[in-house]
């Protein structure tokens, strides 16, 4: 499947795979034995609910011990997911389940580089493609270091998605545009992930600069957390990425209620009349 945004603006939803929040069901703390697959049914149910509520793309976040691009919300989610024993191989199995259940949804593996390296880049590319993943986003992979990563992505027809930042000069934006597939992820502001009051003023300028170099859709992320933000993003970008706002909802919800809570939140993002205007 190719990544497609069915509505405008499109919605990309980030989930930290394996996080069941602060109120998990009592039996879901840890796998029964070391290296037995962790139960990712809650992340699966949240992802399915998000897709059915209107998410075009699900980013499955691979938890990492040192998430230096992330704010406190995703840091905490990653810690909980690691404590539960979530491994990359489990996340790939979850991707396969989601692909079978929702053939039309965009699926992206979102990770720091090290868990992928440890798994093996070639093995990862094969397993992700086989699971039906559409694209891969590595937060700490820049285009200059990406030769072999790109070769592997191309070999198995996975879309490499690079991030573009407000600080990226034109030559970097050009390289990011030329080497990305699926979409370009524009970072709305300098900083780490997390909610904020307003969409940063220079976000629109960044998206405009990216469009000089690529025809790909541009998704804007970092700090997008409500319907007003989504509507504003829709004025200049193709899609909005919602991360910490949803991860925080999952953190606060009981494990059983999380899919419903997330679905209602996403429907709320879509219901704003503002979202239809461009």
């Amino acid at each position: 499947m190719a990544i497609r945004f069915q509505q405008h603006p499109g919605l990309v939803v980030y989930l930290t795979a394996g996080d069941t929040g602060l109120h998990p069901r009592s039996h879901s703390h840890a796998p029964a034995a070391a290296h037995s697959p962790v139960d990712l049914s809650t992340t699966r149910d949240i992802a399915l609910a998000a897709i059915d509520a209107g998410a075009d793309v699900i980013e499955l976040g691979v938890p990492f011990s040192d998430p230096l691009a992330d704010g406190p919300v995703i840091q905490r989610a990653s810690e909980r997911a690691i404590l539960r024993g979530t491994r990359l191989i489990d996340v790939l199995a979850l991707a396969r389940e989601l692909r079978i259940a929702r053939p039309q949804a965009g699926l992206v593996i979102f990770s720091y580089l090290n868990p992928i390296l440890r798994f093996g880049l070639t093995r990862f590319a094969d397993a992700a493609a086989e699971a039906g993943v559409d694209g891969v986003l590595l937060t700490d992979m820049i285009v200059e270091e990406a030769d072999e990563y790109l070769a592997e992505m191309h070999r198995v027809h996975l879309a490499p998605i690079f991030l573009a930042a407000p600080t990226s000069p034109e030559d970097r934006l050009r390289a990011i545009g030329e080497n990305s597939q699926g979409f370009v992820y524009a970072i709305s502001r300098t900083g780490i992930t997390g909610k904020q009051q307003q969409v940063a003023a220079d976000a629109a300028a960044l998206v405009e600069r990216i469009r000089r170099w690529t025809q790909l859709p541009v998704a804007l992320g970092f700090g997008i957390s409500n319907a007003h933000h989504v509507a504003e993003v829709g004025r200049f970008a193709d899609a909005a990425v919602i991360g910490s706002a949803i991860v925080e909802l999952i953190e606060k919800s009981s494990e059983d209620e999380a899919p419903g809570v997330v679905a209602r939140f996403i429907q709320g993002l879509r219901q704003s009349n503002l979202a239809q205007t461009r």
Partner: protein
Amino acid sequence: MATTSANPTTRPGRFGAYGGRYVPETLMAALSELEAAYDAARLDPDFQAELDDLLHNFAGRPTPLYFAKRLTQELGGAKIYLKREDLLHTGAHKINNALGQGLLARRMGKKRIIAETGAGQHGVATATVCALLGLECIVYMGEEDIRRQELNVLRMRLLGAEVRPVTSGSKTLKDAVNEALRDWVTNVRDTYYILGSALGPHPYPTMVRDFHRIIGIETRQQILATEGRLPTAIVACVGGGSNAIGIFHPFLQDTAVRLIGVEAGGRGLTLGDHAARFSGGTPGVLQGTYSYVLQDEDGQVSLTHSVSAGLDYATVGPEHAALHDCGRAEYVSADDIHVLEAVVRLARAEGILPALESAHAVAECLRIAPTMAAHDILVVNISGRGDKDMGILARELNIQGAESR
């Protein structure tokens, strides 16, 4: 590594397969700006003259290369020389790099300085340089390290720096680096990050090494002047590895000189009990660079332990990884117990109290000097002094203070 091009040597910041830049895109412009500014400063005679003046008149360079006569006699083997970086202003080699980067920050027009620190020596050096140059200073330090290196926290605060406790992860050096990087990503336009070891994304490993090469350059001149020949071996402790790369680097072409790095053996060989990356680690990417990393089979970074906060770190500078793989340098470890013994031994034989970090190098010296011949020369880099460790030492060695007379 898995993700480098076929010809890594043509890429900037590579040491064999190691090094590189694995950072959020937001930092790339700042790293490029830093690289360009450093390249210009390096070749600017005025910059070098000001740095040399400060190293001489403010920091106290050159440091002595001291012949440890009693220790040599006691051990009955190689002639032991101590490179006295502990005598530098602020108490450790860290001031070499902090001065260099502080001048660079000022040259780049950056007024806000951030730094990470483990043992606090880099934090104190940075706070000192910021006071000297009139720059705002924020130091990230793990809560665990704040507890065990309190004296350095007090020094930083007295110097006008803001010390921000880091509560994530193991609350030690690795977590302080994460938090400093998060600050930098957020405030990248007006902030200079003075990274304290030969770690992180390019150009830091090269730049920090260059600022510490003076240790090896002086050692080379001093031993040639004193002995008329090069040493048989040089021993230095390796956390991130800045003091070690600084003393090793000018000797890399002198292949007869053994270069020995000493990592933290901690409590033992179980993952989580030590910081011996070359015996327990595997190549991976942490905090912007590809090097040896203590990690589990899923690529999650392991907790580490060392009695010394400065060596308690899950990865190692990428140039050391390259020197390890090509065999030019050897890497061993010393465990906490032998390190504490080494502190006492050096203090009582020579009247020199080494930092717990530097005592790892002393421990290796105690081990190998007796096996060497009398005409062999062994240089030990005493990278810092142990005043900061008196709390730990008093507790571990049961030294009585005023309260229990």
